[in-house]
């Protein structure tokens, strides 16, 4: 029986529940292994006046201290190559590594840190988007997407809306902090276990900074204890530091960040400040839109230009904009380099226009759902994105029709109005938002993958791909794909540790596309293996049974691999065990290993002419209802209903978990996760005591998750990527808060920042209450 489409448990689930699964820091230390840590800049911007390591080097148990002088190169970066690993004369963010410390134990590390004599001169930092704009501190190059004449359209619009949407960052808060172990090998080679989404990038940067060839470095990733984008680029730093120690000392070297250091030193989801000017009709249809996006990229570019590209290509979200201009500028500040985080700019772009929908509804005193429907992308018309991609197989209109019916939207909206008219103590809000998330890396060349499939003599199979497992179940999906492609039981298929030795030049496990790309490559390998095994099987079957009389053949002859057997569908009674065919093929000297390759077809795009950056879109609608305490600002999500188009699900259990997990994670960003800093840029919320990700009690009281039946013929098995898109559905919660505030805002458009914390909500309510008092007095 095929396993695709079935609810197969995660391939590591058993190890996870028994504690048997190994993560980097669970690997037993080898003899002589060193602990690695680093001294980081305590200031957001500072000049290093002097650095004296003499005393620290002499401390008991210290094996070595290293600075930028010990590196072959010090400059790297995924896009701009502008990042300095170890500060030279100037520190450009708080948390930037200056000195790498290697010691026998944690106590010696502490003593060495205390014994480092460093003299820093604090320089004026740039800590906010406003400050960066004032100082014209930007990364190259500002970008623009434009269609039609939005300025003219706005000038003649019946209504014009202007505003600013602002969001804070978000810490990834993967449970397993950044970690790596480097083992020195022969002739300068290194083997590195890294908790990374991007083993190839780790390999490349280690080789570059340490003066090795990539072929001298093997990077392995068994699994990560969560990543969410935070280990796409920023896993590189610890891996290089451990590798530097291994190279210099000839000893194994382990680095594991403490949760606090991790939160202080690593980049986060980008804060954005998005200005908008919207022209619209009295029925709420947008006729012209101008968006000006600014993000806080932090001290180095990291992935910020790509994040901005996705924010810009998701500023339309589910809505057709005939005349539109979207400009994007990445600010350079003295914050840790902000980086990939599930959604990758998409949430910031989409939340801006969902905010606009809510505000248009406020202006027109209409239901925001009507406004959204009036602007939703259609099937035959109003179906081209601002960057010129035709929306194919668009299910948004259907999702916008089905979800309100399923969740009883109209009746509940009446209920909310009635409640707010009578309750003295609470207000409620209800909002239904959408997501249209483009799948494929915006950078075309990243859309490739390779896979190695080895069949062993007993018929069992190993698969290796560049996909890394961080809990999202990519290995389980690949396992299912391979099992069905070879027609064998899933227990016979093992997905191996991700290794740059097995799969070269891989792309990051990112952009939700790991199963699409690596699954596609694995399917390609399996198809070729089947192709080579087919004549072998045909030969055995014909020798054994003789060809059946053609006239009585119900089916045309074709060799089929299914349920652990190989047979001719013209004569299904005669079956060979898969391993029999394997054995025969081996003896006939037929190769039983194959490397598959996949390159996403059809995609092409550039900033000037636009095009088709995405293979397809994952879509959904979400409706959330919230209740707010008028006196304290405390907010509770009473109910959320999510309806998605995720194509044909390869694994409903895995996909459902991605949806619930992304939604709650998005809700955290939009509500409780509050990155507070001091005026000098020191992060105050740097551990779970002060940084509040959603807790089990924050799950909506009623939480309905479903998807529609829909095929996606352009992707493997007809499936769709599901990792990031549902995070954007949490915007429904934030919009519901905004909706609730519209009942106390005295007719004004209620303003709200991200995150809508208890404090943010209460201060908004208070502001409106004071306004009312002024009016009546």
């Amino acid at each position, binding site marked *: 029986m095929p396993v695709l489409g079935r609810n197969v*448990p995660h391939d590591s689930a058993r190890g996870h529940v028994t504690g048997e699964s190994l993560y980097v820091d669970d690997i037993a230390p080898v003899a002589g292994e060193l602990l690695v840590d680093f001294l980081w800049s305590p200031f957001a911007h500072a000049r290093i006046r002097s650095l004296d390591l003499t005393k620290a080097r002499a401390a008991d148990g210290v094996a070595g201290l290293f600075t930028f002088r010990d590196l072959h190169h010090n400059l790297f970066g995924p896009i701009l190559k502008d990042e300095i690993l170890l500060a030279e004369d100037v520190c450009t963010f708080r948390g930037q590594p200056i000195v790498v410390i290697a010691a026998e134990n944690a106590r010696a590390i502490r003593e060495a840190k205390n014994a480092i004599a460093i003299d820093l001169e604090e320089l004026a930092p740039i800590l906010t988007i406003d400050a960066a704009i004032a100082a014209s501190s930007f990364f190259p190059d500002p970008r623009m997407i434009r269609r039609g004449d939005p300025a003219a359209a706005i000038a003649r619009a019946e209504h014009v809306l202007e505003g600013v949407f602002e969001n804070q960052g978000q810490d990834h808060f993967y449970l397993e902090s950044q970690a790596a172990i480097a083992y020195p090998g022969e002739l300068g080679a290194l083997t590195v276990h890294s908790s990374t989404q991007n083993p190839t990038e780790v390999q490349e940067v280690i080789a570059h900074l340490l003066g090795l060839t990539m072929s001298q470095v093997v990077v392995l990733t068994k699994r990560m204890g969560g990543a969410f984008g935070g280990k796409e680029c920023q896993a590189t730093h610890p891996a290089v530091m451990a590798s530097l120690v291994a190279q210099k000392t000839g000893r194994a070297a382990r680095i594991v960040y403490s949760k606090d250091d991790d939160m202080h030193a690593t980049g986060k989801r980008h804060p954005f400040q998005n200005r908008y000017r919207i022209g619209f009709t009295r029925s709420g249809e947008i006729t012209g839109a101008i968006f000006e996006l600014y993000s806080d990229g932090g001290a180095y570019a990291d992935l910020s230009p790509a994040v901005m590209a996705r924010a810009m290509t998701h500023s339309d979200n589910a809505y057709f904009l005939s005349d539109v201009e979207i400009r994007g500028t990445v600010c350079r500040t003295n914050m840790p380099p902000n980086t990939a985080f599930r959604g990758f700019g998409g949430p910031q772009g989409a939340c801006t226009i969902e905010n606009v929908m809510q505000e248009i509804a406020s202006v027109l005193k209409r239901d925001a759902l009507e406004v959204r429907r009036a602007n939703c992308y259609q099937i035959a018309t109003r179906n081209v994105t601002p960057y010129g991609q035709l929306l194919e197989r668009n299910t948004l209109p259907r999702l916008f029709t089905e979800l309100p019916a399923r969740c009883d939207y109209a009746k509940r909206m009446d209920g909310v109005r009635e409640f707010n008219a009578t309750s003295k103590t609470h207000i409620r809000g209800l909002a239904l938002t959408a997501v249209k998330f483009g799948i494929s890396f915006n950078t075309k060349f990243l859309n490739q993958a390779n896979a190695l499939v080895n069949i062993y003599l007993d018929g069992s199979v190993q698969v290796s791909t560049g996909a890394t497992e961080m809990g999202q179940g990519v290995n389980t999906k690949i396992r299912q794909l391979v099992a069905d492609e070879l027609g064998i039981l899933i227990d016979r298929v093992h997905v191996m540790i991700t290794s740059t030795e097995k799969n070269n030049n891989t792309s990051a496990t990112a952009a939700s596309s790991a199963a699409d790309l690596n699954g596609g490559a694995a399917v390609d390998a399996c198809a070729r293996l089947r192709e080579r095994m087919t004549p072998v099987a045909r030969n055995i079957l014909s020798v054994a049974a003789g060809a059946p009389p053609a006239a009585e053949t119900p089916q045309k002859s074709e060799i089929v691999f299914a349920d652990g057997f190989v047979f001719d569908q013209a004569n299904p009674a005669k079956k060979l065990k898969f391993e029999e065919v394997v054995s025969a093929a081996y003896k006939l000297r037929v190769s039983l290993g194959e490397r598959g390759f996949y390159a996403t077809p059809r995609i092409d795009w550039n900033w000037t002419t636009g095009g088709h950056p995405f293979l397809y879109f994952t879509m959904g609608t979400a409706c959330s209802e919230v209740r707010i305490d008028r006196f304290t600002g405390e907010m509770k999500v009473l109910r959320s209903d999510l309806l998605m188009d995720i194509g044909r699900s390869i694994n409903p259990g895995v996909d459902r978990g991605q949806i619930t997990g992304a939604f709650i994670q998005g809700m955290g960003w939009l509500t409780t996760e509050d990155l507070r800093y001091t005026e000098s840029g020191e992060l105050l919320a740097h551990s779970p005591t002060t940084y509040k990700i959603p807790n089990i009690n924050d799950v909506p009281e009623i939480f309905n998750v479903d998807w529609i039946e829909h095929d996606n013929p352009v992707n493997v098995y007809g499936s769709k990527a599901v990792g990031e898109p549902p995070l954007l559905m949490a915007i429904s919660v934030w919009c519901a808060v905004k909706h609730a505030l519209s009942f106390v805002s005295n007719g004004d458009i209620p303003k709200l920042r991200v995150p809508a914390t208890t404090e943010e909500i209460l201060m908004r309510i208070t502001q409106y209450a004071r306004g009312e008092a002024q009016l009546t007095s």
Partner: protein
Amino acid sequence: MRDHIFFYLNGASQKVTGPAIFETLSRYVREQKRETGTKIVCEEGDCGACTVLIGKQEGNTIRYLPVNSCIQYIFQADLTHVVTVEGLSKDGLTPVQDAMVRCHGAQCGYCTPGFIMAMHAVFEEKKTCSAAEAQRGLTGNLCRCTGYEPIIKAAMEVRDEPRIDALYPTAPILRDLSSAESAVRIGNFFKPATLAEAISFKAENPKCTIVQGATDVGVWRNKRAFESPSYLSLSAIDGLGEIALRDGALEAGGRVTLAQFEEAAATHVPEMAAILDRFGSPQIRNAGTLAGNIANASPIADTLPFLYVMNAELELTGRAGVRSVPIGSFYRGYKTLDLAQDEIITKIRIPTPRLGEILKLYKVSKRSHLDISSFTAAFLIRMAGGRIDAVRIAFGGVGPVVLRLPKTEAFLQGKSLDLAIFEGAGAIAREEIKPISDVRGSAEFRLQLGENILRKLYYALAA
């Protein structure tokens, strides 16, 4: 006097002595035993990834409760049976583990062992589990992947979970543990068997730290490299671990845990039980003590406003004998106590609301559960003839210590239940408090809460 710590770990006896007794349980199992299922994430008891079960004798049984092993030290494990994820099953999966596999309760897996242990703790106490019970039992465990929904579902599917004592028969373990001498002295750690010894030790070691649950001390050690010249444990002293209602007051011994307090409050002061439900997590409440919450003297301690309005009294025992201090005069300033060097909090006496008295408690935090308060408030009100006959008000998070609000109280005295009155009281309350801005909220936010909470109180009373 015993010179080592003696405990069981997954059915095998352990003896630890010397400086190693100050190792955390999590590091002990990971580094000494090479059992790495127990994960270390936050090292401050706020994520639950390190959750283990700690089994303590209760009569002829061992009761297994979840605790955070990253802020539990080996010396605290003395005479207990610690069970980690590796110790749950000799072969195959337990029903809890099986349900978590089937329901996709694990994604990245890093939080999973902690969830498994916390969920097992739930089934130590009950046979089946509702969604609400799962949320309550798993409050102390953070998951960043699943959105919790699959985990709640898994908990609800568990049937016929064998209890820990089915795997590890209680009698032989208890026999072995109870054969050990109760008093322990290892270096600068002392666990005396009598109160008198504890008091002399504290007198002789004035800078010593009493460590019971270590929910604060553990964080200081892990995060601030805290070292005390000596550590005193009250675990072996009889009579300090009980809580009971006597003459209308709850009397809690000096090492009564917050979990015990919560259990008693559920019967006698349900309003307080609701606050305790949001105090930390089961793991924290099983370790931390009421006396510890009082002695740590945080202005945002969740128990304090309640204790203030109930006029709780602390029984302090020292060499000179026993004296009683009202909670309201125990704090002399930020983290400064009316506690002599030789004194120990041996009892907390908390009058419960009398007939006709209304108790209202509020806690505002960024996140509803497993969060430290931004603001707390307690009100005790007696109504007579439609008027406020007497009122006591205490706020937390609005100054260096928990504050009573005498002006607001005086204003409300004799007033009727009227919204305008309470709004007026709110304005006075706002003037009486001096909050600061910090990571948990701005001063302005807290001022507004101080004002608004009176209106919230009005609607609660009017309802």
